[in-house]
């Protein structure tokens, strides 16, 4: 274990003061499920590390709130809480489904949604649904508060747009329209404790006559960072779903992965799997053959 001092922030203001004071010499700990693994490895991330600031007691960062047409999920809300939260299960089913696939029960009891966002893994389970929802990161420092769209906030693998003195307070997103449906599918090497080899978050709104009014398709572990697969979305938006169309959308999403991530050792496997995952997720939500 790396050597460091442990400081407990007892208020949000104190946490922000500590971040301003220590800058790059400081890391924040909440659930610790990513940080403690990094602090044990000899790879030397954060060479200047001197202190770890515990924010796990900050009430301001807890809880899920519906505020008008928005839902705000505090950064300290755990994966287990997201998975079991009645409002989230009802309105953003795929986010609950995604959090239910994270790690193991022990990891879900500790790991937080804020940690998942800030760690910015390309394979993070909660990120595809959050990106599909058009979520924003709410961050604060002594300089003030700002909101950043998640697609901008997630800069690159394991890099987010948080400045040294900033803390993620919450993620917030517009409530999906009534009648929208969502699902999250994940392919891992086993069911528990599996990092996603590929995943897919789908959010669709279907009109009265069965046409797709809006659709968001966000694959995980496919692009360098979770982003909407807009070519596939464009094929589907405004159309009536048919098995042939869903298959074409699947191919388009897989093509977009290859365009953005390039040909990799895993492409031969991932291309057909992502096409199939897309087709299956859409069939599940829109009806039709798998």
């Amino acid at each position, binding site marked *: *274990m790396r050597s460091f001092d442990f400081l407990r922030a007892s208020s949000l203001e104190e946490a922000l003061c500590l971040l301003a004071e220590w800058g790059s010499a400081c890391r924040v700990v909440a659930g610790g499920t990513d940080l403690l*693994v990094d602090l044990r490895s000899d790879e030397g991330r954060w060479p200047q590390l001197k202190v770890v600031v515990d924010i796990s007691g900050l009430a301001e960062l807890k809880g899920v709130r519906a505020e008008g047409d928005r839902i705000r999920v505090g950064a300290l809300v755990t994966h287990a809480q997201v998975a079991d939260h009645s409002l989230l299960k009802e309105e953003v089913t795929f986010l609950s489904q995604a959090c239910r696939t994270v790690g193991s029960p022990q990891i879900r009891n*500790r790991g937080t949604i804020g940690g998942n966002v800030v760690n910015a893994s390309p394979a993070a389970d909660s990120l595809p649904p959050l990106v599909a929802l058009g979520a924003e990161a709410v961050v604060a420092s002594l300089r003030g508060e700002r909101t950043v769209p998640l697609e901008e906030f997630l800069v690159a693998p394991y890099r987010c747009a948080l400045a040294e003195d900033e803390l993620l307070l919450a993620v917030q997103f517009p409530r999906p329209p009534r009648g929208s449906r969502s699902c999250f599918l994940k392919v891992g090497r086993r069911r528990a404790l599996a990092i996603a080899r590929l995943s897919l978050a789908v959010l669709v709104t279907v009109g009265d006559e069965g046409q797709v009014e809006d659709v968001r398709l966000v694959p995980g572990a496919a692009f360098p960072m979770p982003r909407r697969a807009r070519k596939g979305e464009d094929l589907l938006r405004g159309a009536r779903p048919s098995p042939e169309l869903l298959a074409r959308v699947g191919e388009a999403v897989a093509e977009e992965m290859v365009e953005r991530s390039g040909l990799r050792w895993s492409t031969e496997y991932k291309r057909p799997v992502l096409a199939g995952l897309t087709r299956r997720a859409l069939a599940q939500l829109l009806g039709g053959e798998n």
Partner: protein
Amino acid sequence: MRTQEESGRRLKVSFILNGRRVEVLTRPNARLLDVLRDDLGLTGTKEGCGIGECGACTVLLDGEAVNSCLVLAGQVEGREVVTIEGLEQPGPEGPRLHPVQQSFIDKHAVQCGFCTPGMILSAVALLAKNPHPSREQIREAISGNLCRCTGYVSIVDAIEEASRRLAAELAGDRAGEARPGHGGAV
């Protein structure tokens, strides 16, 4: 403003461990697992992988199963921790094993024993929330605990058995309360 004792880079942590308040002076970078095993000598909690994959170090933190290798010591300040050593229960003829522990013995759910403490605490956490789990729910609850000996079948059997015994005990207690003078109070 800071709650840490900075003298000589030692950290004072006080928490409830197995029902009793304890106070330890430890390294600021110690994990809960290190405090339990090295500072307090409670070696029932095992260290397997040290990165949250195997579940051998599972303990209860405020009633929830967590990997004690992924919790920093300072994070348990004021909170409640239960380890395998804390499951023993008082009985009329002296202390006895927790029903989950006894079921693991009776159903031969222990081979090398290394995963057993963590496995049992995951089971205790499950049964506290869901007293009558299905086999599928049991498998889900222990999916963060690796066992390389048993093949898990006997472990799932043991947890099912524990669920029945806990239900029977609860029914017994209720019957005792309903009929004063028939063994309810000792």
